[in-house]
């Protein structure tokens, strides 16, 4: 595989420009996290006047960061797992079956992407309250309420993407598995899913990020006990001070596991279909 020189030059340019664009704020974050408070209030300097790790210590007490971190992790992980599972089943149905109501379903699912969050924020809150009053299941101010909300937010796009991926996987694979005695679900799990792995990973990442970063609904649906990072970090700006350095430190700590997770997921972006799947 030889790449042409043009391509190599293009690659260097693209990678350099995009890396610089991406890295600049990250660099600012890292250095600011190690600056004393006066530094982040005064004129900008590329390097801290003195390196201090105090922000990393203080940030845990200014706001209950640990609790927010745990909440975010639980909410995002659960929402992701649930939405991926539900999306896989739904996408399989959409991709492999021509049933009545299929177009209605896909159109409705697409149309939910257009809903401005502000429109259904208050109604959703009211519905949760009503569910609480009728079924006794508390959804407002709990993690489970957020999980259900976020997994539904991630569903439409996930279903669409996965259905597209499944469409790209030839039916012969399914048929081969069925001939071998698999049920349709079995064919899904044993044959189609492994072949759609990059799509599933991408959709899982998307689901996780949706839950991880959502601000509008979290601001309304959470109490102190169930608050997530996305709005918890706002509390570093208080009545009397804006603790920039602690915000940066907290953001760093909070991003490290996510970044490590991405690194580990790298190898799952495997090119093409696994060979030998069609016997």
């Amino acid at each position, binding site marked *: 595989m030889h790449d042409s020189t043009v391509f190599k030059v293009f690659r260097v340019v693209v990678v350099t420009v995009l890396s610089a664009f991406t890295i600049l704020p990250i660099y600012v974050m890292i250095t600011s996290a190690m600056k004393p408070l006066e530094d982040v209030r005064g004129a900008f300097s590329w390097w801290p006047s003195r390196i201090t790790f105090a922000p990393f210590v203080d940030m845990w007490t*200014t706001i209950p960061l640990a609790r927010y971190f745990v909440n975010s992790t639980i909410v995002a992980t659960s929402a992701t797992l649930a939405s991926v599972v539900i999306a896989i089943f739904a996408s399989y149905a959409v991709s492999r079956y021509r049933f009545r109501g299929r177009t209605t379903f896909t159109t409705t699912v697409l149309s939910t992407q257009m809903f401005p969050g502000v429109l259904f924020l208050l109604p959703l*809150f009211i519905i949760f309250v009503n569910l609480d009053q009728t079924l006794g299941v508390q959804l407002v101010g709990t993690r489970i309420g957020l999980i259900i909300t976020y997994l539904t937010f991630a569903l439409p796009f996930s279903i669409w993407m996965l259905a597209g991926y499944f469409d790209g996987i030839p039916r012969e694979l399914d048929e081969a598995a069925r001939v071998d005695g*698999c*049920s349709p679900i*079995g064919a899904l799990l044993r044959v189609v899913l492994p072949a759609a792995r990059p799509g599933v990973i991408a959709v899982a990442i998307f689901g996780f990020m949706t839950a991880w970063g959502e601000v509008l609904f979290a601001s*309304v649906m959470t109490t102190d*006990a169930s608050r997530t990072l996305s709005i918890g970090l706002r509390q570093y700006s208080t009545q009397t*001070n804006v603790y920039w350095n602690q915000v940066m430190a907290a953001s760093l700590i909070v991003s490290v596991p996510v970044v490590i997770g991405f690194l580990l997921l790298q190898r799952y972006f495997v090119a093409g279909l696994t060979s030998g799947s069609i016997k």
Partner: protein
Amino acid sequence: MKTRTLTAAVAVTALLLGATAALACGSSSSKGKSSGSVTLTYWASNQGTSLDNDKQVLTPVLDAFTKETGVAVKMEVIGWSDLQTRIQTAVTSGQGPDVVNIGNTWAVSLQATDAFLPFGDAEMKAIGGADKFVKPALETGGKKGSPPTSVPLYGLAYGLYYNKAMFKAAGLKPPTTWEEMVVAAKALTDPAKKKYGFALAAGSYTENCHFAFINAAQNGADVFDAKGNPTFTQDGVVDGIVRYLDLMQTDKVVNPADAQYDNGALAVTDFANGKVAMILNQNNADATIVANGMSKDAYGVVAYPAPKNAKTDVASHVAGINLSIFANTKHKDEALQFVEYMTSPAVQEQLGKPFASLPVLNDAKAMFTDNPQEAATFINIYNTRAKPLPLVPAEDQFETTVGQAMNAMFAKIATGGTVTRNDVKAAMQTAQDQVTASTG
């Protein structure tokens, strides 16, 4: 076979959701789990340096209350960025705390929702009587002519902070009129040395609208008429705003960069670092000033001055925090007990220092500062020269429309544009139309 794997996947998901639900149910707080005794839910606002700080300050106070009365209090401290939305959802859903802190400028708007307990004669008696409160503070609790739905808890007022050393070096005296203030500011402004006479939170819509109101009051004008209709285009209001904008535009005593300051603390920081000679801030600036390393003797405070031929000498609006009880509370008597406790002299004294607040009780001691002069100045301003913001339900609309219009005007000035009196009047007309339209 394969279906077993399917079932396994579903079972795992179900278990996971169930486990999280269990965890969630465990962490989500519900009211009054204690056997038999009452637990009040209380939403406190952020008054200290951080939410944690508020919790640390209030917990011993609440514990003492529980010891005295046997009523437990479950407190949640909510940051200002979330407090209004949380109150809105509590009002909408009917699920909320028993007692809540509110910004006192929200009092009349919240009263209009009918979701809060009015303090009639019986209730007032239960909390110690209406007479114990400083009159202007009590007036903020609700609209005129009806029982208030909130009572004052912490008092705040604006003052003009000045740098003693800078004034002494320039041979200036603390200003008593607007004109003197501008002259002093000009004398202390040297853009080449990056020193300015004033720092303003020119990007904060709340600060801007407060000064629009105060300046209008000094000019003898009101922003709402007796029927509750907005009167933003009156000469007194427009002139007041022009006067304030001119600090940056014509007098040039304010750094244009201040147009980015969306938070009062940012201006205070400049003052504490010696970059500016004066700031206009509420009395809780002391905490930020000291935290930034300025000594307590380095600054003095006077009342925000009015122009020489002003109609009134209003120096501040009545700022502060009020305490409200939700009307659908199941523990009315205990909530009233709690309100009485929080507004009792002992507790007021205890909280005055950490929250840097002015006392809302008559004849109470000011704890927010050790400096007797500063204390006397602020108490005088709060008790005699402060006017409540308009006690109409559309007051919050005034804040957002006029405040944001002023943000835009400061931004225009800072980025090199000019704002004429006609521009201000036109902006006020737009703001007025917006308020009229959305409230009908």
